[in-house]
């Protein structure tokens, strides 16, 4: 059975986010032998259309307007609803990003449908689309299906593999004009606090520090390792509470949930609230002075030792490795 599926692509700092390619792959699973249509909304987003197609979209619809330069739920919902009214899809996929989380419930409420948020797996079983998503912050999973109406989901970054980019693929790109009116929330200013380009929730490698890092300066060691590995830095609540770093880095039950390929926990004891935010990572490395630390229970590899000694050595080793590979 084929469905027509709309997939919202999302750009950040001038580039499509990786989760958008994952969302296309998810959309194709829902579509079956139907059609997967990329939707791009923004001030000037047409340039990304080709890339969405190369990652599997059959065609792309853009909505461009100066009022869409920054995300607001009012403006983006007007743009998306216009596409929805025109295409009448049977499925919708967004990334479970700040934007996707904010916009998806509004769209679901407007059209009166269910919404599966933060899915980590999508499979078709006997013509029915079956979703898996973590609940209780990853301490359990639930398997869901949609009773009726549009199949609508947001997908967690880093969990559904994107398709290989195929530069030979082509498809139709069209645009629709949407009058954007009645914006009830206005963005006055955006303050960038995240320093580097790699977003914590999308990072393939996360280096996280806890109380054991002891100071703001201690986090420099983590930053250096993260830079060599092209990863992002995170933290436990303890490190944030102690002001070693910004709360935006917090991983855990309150804070961000991450599922990178590699999670390196340095000086983190492994409180259950922290584990909730990272235990589904693919490979976990723990570095801690205390051999009894709880973090070792979820770690694939553990080093009992002083992080101030281990981290610089790791950075050095990976630097050597990078030099060889390059």
């Amino acid at each position, binding site marked *: 059975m084929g469905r027509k599926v709309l997939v919202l692509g999302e750009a950040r700092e001038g580039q499509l986010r990786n989760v958008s390619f994952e969302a296309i792959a998810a959309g194709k699973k829902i579509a079956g032998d139907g059609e997967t249509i990329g939707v791009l909304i923004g001030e000037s987003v047409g340039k990304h259309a080709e890339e969405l197609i190369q990652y599997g979209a059959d065609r792309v619809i853009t909505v461009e307007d100066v009022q869409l330069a920054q995300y607001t739920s009012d403006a983006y919902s007007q743009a998306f609803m216009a596409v929805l009214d025109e295409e009448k899809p049977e499925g919708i996929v967004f990334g479970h990003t700040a934007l996707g989380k904010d916009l998806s419930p509004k769209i679901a409420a407007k059209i009166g449908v269910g919404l599966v948020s933060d899915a980590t797996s999508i499979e078709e079983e006997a013509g029915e689309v079956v979703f898996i998503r973590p609940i209780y*912050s990853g301490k*359990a999973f*639930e*398997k869901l299906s949609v009773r009726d109406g549009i199949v609508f989901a947001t997908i967690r970054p880093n969990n559904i593999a994107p398709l290989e980019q195929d530069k030979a693929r082509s498809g139709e790109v069209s645009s629709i004009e949407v009058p954007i009116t009645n914006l009830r929330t206005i963005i006055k200013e955006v303050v960038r606090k995240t320093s580097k380009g790699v977003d914590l929730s999308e990072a393939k490698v996360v280096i996280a520090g806890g109380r054991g890092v002891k100071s703001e300066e201690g986090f420099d060691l983590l930053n250096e390792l993260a830079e060599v590995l092209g990863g992002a830095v995170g933290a436990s609540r303890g490190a944030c509470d102690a002001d070693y770093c910004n709360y*935006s880095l917090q991983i855990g039950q309150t804070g961000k949930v991450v599922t990178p390929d590699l999670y390196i926990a340095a000086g983190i004891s492994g409180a259950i609230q922290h584990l909730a935010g990272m235990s*589904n990572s693919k490979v976990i490395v723990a570095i801690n002075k205390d051999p009894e630390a709880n973090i070792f229970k979820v770690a694939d590899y553990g080093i009992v030792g002083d992080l101030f000694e281990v981290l610089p050595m790791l950075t050095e*080793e990976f630097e050597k490795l990078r030099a060889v590979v390059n």
Partner: protein
Amino acid sequence: MNIVVLLKRTFDTEEKISIANGQVQEEGAEFIINPYDEYGVEEAIRLRDNHGGEVTVVSVGGEEAEKQLRTALAMGADKAVLINTEDDLDEGDQFTTAKILTSYLTDKNADIILAGNVAIDGGSGQVGPRVAEGLGIPYVTTITQIEVNGKAVSITRDVEGDSESIQTSLPVLVTCQQGLNEPRYPSLPGIMKAKKKPLEEIELDDLDLDEEDVRAKIKTLDIYLPPQKAAGRLLEGDISAQVDELVGLLRNEAKVI
């Protein structure tokens, strides 16, 4: 100001989850106010103390949620409403909860509605925005600061670590993010007073809703625990040997580098 807080009773963050017959077992577990909703209760009390008015906490759930509503009253909320769905609904989803809350709030003329950014059990973060859409009012999610000046509202929100300054106006619904405030503990006099504060209990009938109107759109097929991870490996030898071994393992065994 007429301030409403949407509140959910959830498992304590310390609780282990166990499952029997495809359901999460609640017996013996500790329950709390969803931590993100607790920020909402605290902020509501502060807004009332600065601007006057009344704080109403509303929960959809069973009889047991009364305890968390009493806690919110003890913190300083003025009144509580429990929309008890125990007898009417076997299962519900975010559509269900939002529809019930929207029906309840539709004639209440709330100036500001505070909800959690996400509940730590279901973790979908849908109900707040769905209710705002149902009521036809704007919403701002993951807020870390809010100031009200007459009808004008200035908000700072967290966007994946960056922060946005937003200007909007009442009425508005906001969802609370960590960093908004430090919720107070109920004081002993607060707890005593809470016992006398009004806690109204209503059912779907009182909202002119029947089961069919709020039937879940999503069907739960199964609930299960994550697969047990094989025991990890503690590396041995001196630190530099361990580091070498780790790099090798990450490259050749785990293949993540």
